[in-house]
């Protein structure tokens, strides 16, 4: 049984300009101990997916219109208030916005343990110090008594991950956890995620716009675009033979280290679509080099190709899968 199963999830935002479909019937699952990468540009729905699982969609504009989420086989949203922070936790892009600026780091860590695990103050103190140490924070005893503003960006993100991992969650959702960091610090944080992956059974959803980061950490990858999942592949297959034209375009536009220095890059023409007025048929068809007539008329189903699924008419004739 998969740890998490998302079925036909549709999320809408009601804004003054109209109704925006941020997620349009997406389905995927996550196995125990697996790292699932979600890749997409702004507006693709990758963060909305995370917030839907956490039931933290901004109210009242955002709501789940359709679909279900199962956690260990049971409907998640009824129980999410008990599970959030304990069995399912989250790390955000900007740790300064997600830490309380007026509480010491130590208090914020201990609160989690006392609230969810019913721990004594002394035990919570020791566990918190251990958690900070595991994340490579030097001199954790002193750091417990510091405020978030006294931490550097990298140290704050370490503290956030320590906090998210305190209750040994079954699922950790990391939304662009390295995007705000310098490249040498990003390497350190990625190292921490790699270690977590090895040392714990926690499943991780790792959201990023950066395919290079995803290549380093994910087992399987979802490619999202304009509220849809275009492709699901193992990370190896994705980089070896990307199926969807959008995935191919994304990979080709990475200025790679090994390529000859020709100064031009491959680029995907056009712009990311406006979700208030999404394209008909396949959402990618206005920018796709292989567009055929059918792409404009009908939304492609998920075709099964090898171990991957891809939503593109180029693969018409392959088996169609209902859930992935």
């Amino acid at each position, binding site marked *: 049984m998969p740890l998490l199963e998302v079925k036909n999830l549709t999320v809408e935002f009601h804004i003054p300009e109209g109704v925006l479909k941020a997620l349009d019937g997406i389905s995927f699952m996550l196995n125990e101990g697996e790292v699932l990468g979600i890749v997409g*540009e*702004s507006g693709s729905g990758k963060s909305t997916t995370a917030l839907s699982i956490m039931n933290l969609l901004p109210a009242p504009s955002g709501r789940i219109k359709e679909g279900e989420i199962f956690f260990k086989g049971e409907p998640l949203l009824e129980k999410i208030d008990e599970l959030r922070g304990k069995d399912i936790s989250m790390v955000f892009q900007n740790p300064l916005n997600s830490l309380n600026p007026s509480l010491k780091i130590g208090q914020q860590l201990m609160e989690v343990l006392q609230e969810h695990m019913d721990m004594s103050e002394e035990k919570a103190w020791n566990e918190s110090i251990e958690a900070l140490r595991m994340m490579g924070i030097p001199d954790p005893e002193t750091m417990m008594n510091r405020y978030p503003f006294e931490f*550097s960006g*990298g*140290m704050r993100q370490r503290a956030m991950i320590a906090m998210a991992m305190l209750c040994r969650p079954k699922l950790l959702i990391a939304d662009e956890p390295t995007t705000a960091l*310098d*490249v*040498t*610090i*990003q*390497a*350190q944080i*990625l*190292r921490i995620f*790699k270690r977590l992956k*090895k040392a714990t059974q926690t499943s991780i959803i790792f959201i990023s*716009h*950066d*395919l*290079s*980061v995803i*290549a*380093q950490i*994910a087992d399987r990858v979802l490619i999202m675009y304009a509220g849809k999942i275009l492709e699901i592949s193992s*990370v*190896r297959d*994705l*980089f070896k033979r990307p199926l969807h034209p959008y995935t191919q*375009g*994304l*990979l080709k*536009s*990475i*200025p*790679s*280290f090994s*390529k000859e*220095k020709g*100064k*031009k*890059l*491959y*680029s*995907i*023409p056009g*712009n*990311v679509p406006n979700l208030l007025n999404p394209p008909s048929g396949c959402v990618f068809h206005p*920018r796709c080099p292989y567009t055929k007539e059918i792409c404009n008329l009908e939304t492609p189903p998920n075709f099964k190709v090898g171990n991957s699924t891809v939503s593109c008419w180029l693969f018409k004739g392959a088996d169609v899968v209902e859930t992935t």
Partner: protein
Amino acid sequence: MKLLEVKNLKVFFPIKDKLFGKPTKFVKAVNNVSFEVEKGEIFSIVGESGSGKSTIALALMGIHERNGGSIIFNGAEVNQEDFKTLRRKIQIVFQDPDSSLDPRKRIKEIIAEGLRVHRVGDKAFIDEKVRDIVEKVGLTVDTLRKYPHELSGGQKQRVGIARALVLEPELIILDEPTASLDVSIQAQILNLLVDLQEALGLTYILITHDLKLVEHISDRTLVMYLGKVMEMGETKQIMNKPLHPYTKALIDSVPVPNPEKRNENEEILTGEIPSPLNPPEGCPFKTRCKYRMELCSKEPKSIKLENRVVFCHLYESKNLEV
């Protein structure tokens, strides 16, 4: 031909402990930086946050006053009061077009503003010039009537480029020109910049933290750390065989877009950039450097080696292979 020469540039920011009185400390944001930019090349300045790379850009625009050193443009020494006229020749494209385009002005006014300020031509000339430039950057003429909020991120960055180009500058400073854009749009803007450079014979100074971008696009590179130069030379050479331990660490930190190349145990740089208020004495990188020796508390000299400049004590005796 040399277009720009920067010699021993210093930009310090005063820190005051008290509301009144003299500053007690200085942040040495740019400390003794020298480089030259050839006409027609793409020169990159790379570094992490706090390295001083953007401060150099603003000093070259005359927006930050320098505390020392000289800037020589087209063979003539530039003083602080010369920038008013010089800004026609040196233009800048900022990282975030949202905060660098006036939300209350139409695109046409935004692009034409430079021409008006510098009193270039009459209304008819300006109109034509603006229309011409907007097509050069890949926008349609009807964009001119719009306001910034009506455009996408990539389109706004094209406006930023058009505004820089309209005065026909000789040097364009690109300060993280693609960092705020979506991945699929980044490549479009990069290609536009490369096309424009080839068509108009422009010279770029590219300021970025993105080594992949530098590797791909630039001819020569300057690597900075805490306000100082670490290494400078041809981009290809630096990327293939970095000499300075910091350059090497920086290159090794970039994630490789290949799941087959996952190094779980590779050496990665530990520690963080020290506070610029309290930088280490001597070599600023010594607190994180694995080759650190006693000598490193002294200021490293500029060493010319293998066709480039490197500031590291390791190469003073050249006994050690990195």
